[in-house]
């Protein structure tokens, strides 16, 4: 279990993270989303005890990560965005070194490393020098390093960035498999990846926690489509807002092109087929034909764009 309260980090006088609080239950897989510079990596580094906060508390599996960072770090395995690898070492030597660093007893080390290499499917490259591996395999070696000691918490910062589609699928499957036995905190720009692996999402922007909810809730509450109608914008908006189960109507263009007689809106709410039919009939009754109606493909994406705008 991870408990974060009032987490704040300043770089000099510039705020990196401001008063972030959240908790993660054991065995949960949580996604950390946010634009570049939002503070995601700063939060992950503080959770992994690689950086001290300016203020706030972090409890990892009951250990105060600020007061006892080394003890807390033993409970976490951290894979940074760029895996921390010695390029001139062989894979097996690298893992043996970190097994020693993390305190795996000498007599158990070989078996432990063998098990981790099998889990991450890198046993067939154990004798290769790391700089000669592909990016996907280097990512796996970095993940293997994070798994040494089987920490209960895995913290992964953009684990699939820079990989090709096949490598992304392989690493993603690997992480999904690990999520059964570990608490996972995953930061990513790839929203489908977060939806595939995580049950809950934290959206960070400008160093603050903007939104925290389960993916299931976000998906159900966030059905949206865009609609382009021939008619005056004000009248069209009135009809749309009056339709039952429509929660929000927003003009899509900042300056609707009324000169050509068309107006475009984003409509959100519990807008299933019945509501769309109702909108059709209401607009038809006012002689305002629908020129285009398009679903917004990903509710999480639209929420992300909206809250981080």
């Amino acid at each position, binding site marked *: 279990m991870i408990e974060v309260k009032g987490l704040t980090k300043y770089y000099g006088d510039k705020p990196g993270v401001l008063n972030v609080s959240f908790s993660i239950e054991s065995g949960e897989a949580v996604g950390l989303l946010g634009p570049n510079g939002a503070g995601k990596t700063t939060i992950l*580094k503080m959770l*992994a*005890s*690689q*950086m*001290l906060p300016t203020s706030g508390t972090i409890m990892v599996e009951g250990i105060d990560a600020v007061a006892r*960072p*080394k003890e807390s*770090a*033993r409970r976490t395995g*951290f894979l*940074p965005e*760029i*895996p*921390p*690898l*010695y*390029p*001139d*070492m062989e894979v097996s*030597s690298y893992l043996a*070194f*970190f097994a*020693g*660093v*993390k*305190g795996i007893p000498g007599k158990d080390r070989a078996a432990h490393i063998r098990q981790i290499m099998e889990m991450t499917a890198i046993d067939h490259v154990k004798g290769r020098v790391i700089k000669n591996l592909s990016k996907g395999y280097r990512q796996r070696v970095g993940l293997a*390093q994070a798994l040494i000691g089987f920490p209960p918490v895995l913290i992964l910062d953009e684990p699939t960035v820079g990989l090709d589609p096949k490598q992304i699928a392989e690493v993603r499957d690997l992480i999904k498999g690990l999520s059964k036995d570990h608490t996972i905190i995953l930061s990513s720009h790839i929203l489908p990846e977060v939806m595939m692996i995580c049950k809950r999402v934290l959206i960070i922007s400008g160093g603050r926690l903007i939104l925290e909810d389960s993916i299931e809730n976000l998906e159900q509450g966030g059905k949206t489509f865009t609609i382009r109608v021939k008619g005056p914008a004000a009248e069209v908006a009135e009809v749309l807002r009056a339709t039952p189960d429509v929660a929000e109507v927003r003009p899509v263009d900042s300056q609707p092109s009324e000169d050509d007689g068309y107006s475009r809106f984003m409509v959100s709410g519990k807008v299933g087929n019945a509501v769309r039919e109702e909108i059709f009939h209401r607009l038809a009754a006012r002689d305002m034909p629908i020129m285009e109606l398009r679903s917004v493909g990903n509710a999480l994406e639209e929420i992300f764009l909206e809250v981080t705008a």
Partner: protein
Amino acid sequence: MYLIFKKEIAGYFSTPFGFIFMGVFLLLSGIIFTSYNLLGGGGDLNGMFGLFSNISFMIFPILTIKMFADERRYGIEPLLLSSRLSSTQIVLGKYFAACAVFLAALAMTVVYVVMLLIYGFPYMTAIVGSYIGFFLLGAAFIAVCTFTASLADNYVTAAIASFGALVGLVMAGAVSRSLPIPVVSQVFSALALTRQYDEFIRGIFRPGPVVYFVGFSVVFLCLAIISLERRRLL
């Protein structure tokens, strides 16, 4: 500490650095031995060790430029600093590995002593004293370079800082002799490592210079540990 020591030794010889250091060291020693002893007919190693003390500032930075720069460059340092290893273990492991490579290179020059023994009657006390003194001098230089490397984020900065620090220490002796200002010249004299080393070449073996070199190394290693510890607390 042994974990770091073992990794560093392997690192010196899986990259060019260890080979470059030993190659340059042995090349310089070979040139000096050839010109002073084989061609010049000298029966001792005073010339070699004397010249070495004045040019060693060029070669010791090779041993230390990647000491911390690699781990910073590849993002490994935060992992080590948040592990069970203390800053002291990390610094000492790296320091002793560098000293071990230096000792290995120095040990290879024993072949010159063998040649002197075969063809002459060298003053062994002075030779043994020179080896001990030069090892202590080298260990002190490596400690200084360990500290300057602990402050640097990349090879170039580490090299320039180490080179500059060692040039300063080698020149301190000459500066202290030419400066008439009492306190300042004494400070420079205290920093003049090579002056303390001169006694060893003459076969004078006193505890004072040994303690001086060991103390000098300890001070700079402590500074390196403090420097690393400050990075942990960021």
